[in-house]
């Protein structure tokens, strides 16, 4: 078997005395998607932030393409260049046009020429049906469009791994689908991803593996069918029941 893109080994993270992640281990093979589900506060965002090195872990290690990115001498900027992350709150740069949001990192980080960066950005905007928004400022776009721009921005640097943190949670229900279909397209094109989501139907569609996170621990993991349709742990059953009652299944 080839080396996984991401390998997380017994990671632990606490804020003060509160343990937020405990003994987290999993690996993500290339071209696959691992989906984390779990109630709010279970540690999903913290896990993604740790992978992105926006937060420091307390124990364990994280490997990207076999390289320990949590080593003391790891080059943080270089690691982040290989990772894309999309946040719940979009975090587009409000003072830049859509096209400049997308071309900033390719130009400044990868040193791609302005023409090439713009051409690539326009291609991506085209592909996701946003070509007419290139010259707009983010606040002129709907939430769904903003989130799609945020996704395009993070894949414009051709990351090895894409991290998506509840990217539809801040959106109107009618806008959720356009964002999810963008992610489905990326999956089909072979993007390797780690996602946190509350959209179970979507998890079933894109996930190769689903992990149920409960109070900072992976309680149960397996294929989407195993976890979402035949969960073994009482906590997983309880969680899915609550999600189901909220009408998200």
């Amino acid at each position: 078997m080839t080396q996984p893109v991401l390998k997380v080994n017994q990671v632990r993270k606490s804020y003060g005395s509160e343990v937020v992640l405990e003994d987290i281990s999993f690996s993500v093979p290339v071209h696959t998607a691992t989906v984390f589900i779990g109630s709010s506060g279970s540690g999903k965002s913290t896990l993604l932030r740790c992978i992105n090195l926006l937060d420091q872990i307390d124990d364990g290690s994280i490997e990207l393409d076999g390289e320990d990115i949590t080593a003391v001498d790891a080059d943080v900027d270089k690691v982040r260049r290989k990772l894309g992350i999309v946040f719940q709150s979009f975090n587009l740069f409000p003072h830049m046009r859509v096209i400049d949001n997308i071309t900033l990192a390719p130009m400044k980080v990868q040193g791609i020429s302005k023409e090439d960066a713009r051409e690539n950005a326009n291609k991506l905007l085209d592909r996701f049906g946003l070509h007419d928004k290139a010259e707009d400022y983010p606040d002129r776009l709907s939430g769904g469009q903003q989130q799609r721009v945020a996704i395009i921005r993070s894949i414009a640097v051709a990351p090895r791994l894409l991290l998506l943190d509840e990217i539809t949670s801040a959106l109107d229900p009618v806008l959720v689908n356009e964002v999810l279909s963008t992610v489905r397209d990326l999956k089909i094109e072979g993007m390797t991803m780690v996602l946190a989501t509350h959209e179970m139907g979507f998890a079933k569609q894109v996930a190769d593996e689903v992990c149920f996170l409960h109070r900072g621990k992976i309680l149960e993991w397996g294929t989407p069918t195993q976890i979402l349709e035949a969960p073994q742990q009482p906590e997983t059953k309880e969680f899915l029941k609550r999600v189901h009652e909220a009408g998200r299944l």
Partner: protein
Amino acid sequence: MSNELGRQSESDSGAAPYNFGGEWKPSQLEIDRRAARKARNRRNAAIAILSSIVVIGGLALVAVTSPGWKSLSDTFFAWAYGVEVLPKIILGFGTNVSLTLIASTCVGIFGLSIALIRTSRSPALAPFRILATVYVDVFRGIPMLLVLLLVGFGIPALRIKGLTNNVLILGTLAVVITYTAYVAEVIRSGILTIHPSQRAAARSLGLSHFQSLRYVVLPQAFRRVTPPLLNDLVALIKDTGLVSILGVTDAVRAAQIASSRSFNYTPYVMAAIIFLLVTIPLTRFTDRTLRRSIERQNATGVA
């Protein structure tokens, strides 16, 4: 009344249930409402004009009819004499202008540097952070006049070779020292208002600390603090007049010389008018910028 607007619409879409943009005429209700609004606006304008005339006219009348008015106008508003000394005052004002240009440039550079040092978290900068904090605290808390006296008379008193005795340079230095402290705080507050998620987004794209500042944080911070920075610029222009106490021949000093010769205060009024000619437009501009920036912030709901 078939108007231009009516012609733009597709009038042959007769089958459509709604005729958007078609031949729309306001209803009687709307016509009445508009008439009522117009009448109200007219009445408000009339009240505003009338009350202005009464208040301002009344004040003018009180001033002009007061027993001291004759001597007052002779001492402060001797226009013929004012015009005579005007060239000297304008020449002096040139000093204020160049002092403003040089000082504001320096203040911008140093203020930004200090703001960046104070908002950085790099351990290597720790001593500079402490120095910057002390500097800002001290010079925001001292009257500029004192700084001016200390620098303008204190430095020459040291009699150190190579140090300048040029009052213009020393005056500029005092202005820069004082205003850098104010401006650094304004810029720092601007940097602090940018939500950390913006920096996180920049860093996660692989931008370095410096690049995140340069392309993401600072452009947004400056947009927010433009109005207070313009306020400080207006204040700085006025305060350049204080360097006259060091003997710099600026507009204030020129007026002082003229008036001490004639025992007439019209030169001061002339100098005041010249300052106003610059500061009032700038103040109006600042107001407009502030209003725009508030509108923009209200329009942008999403962080």
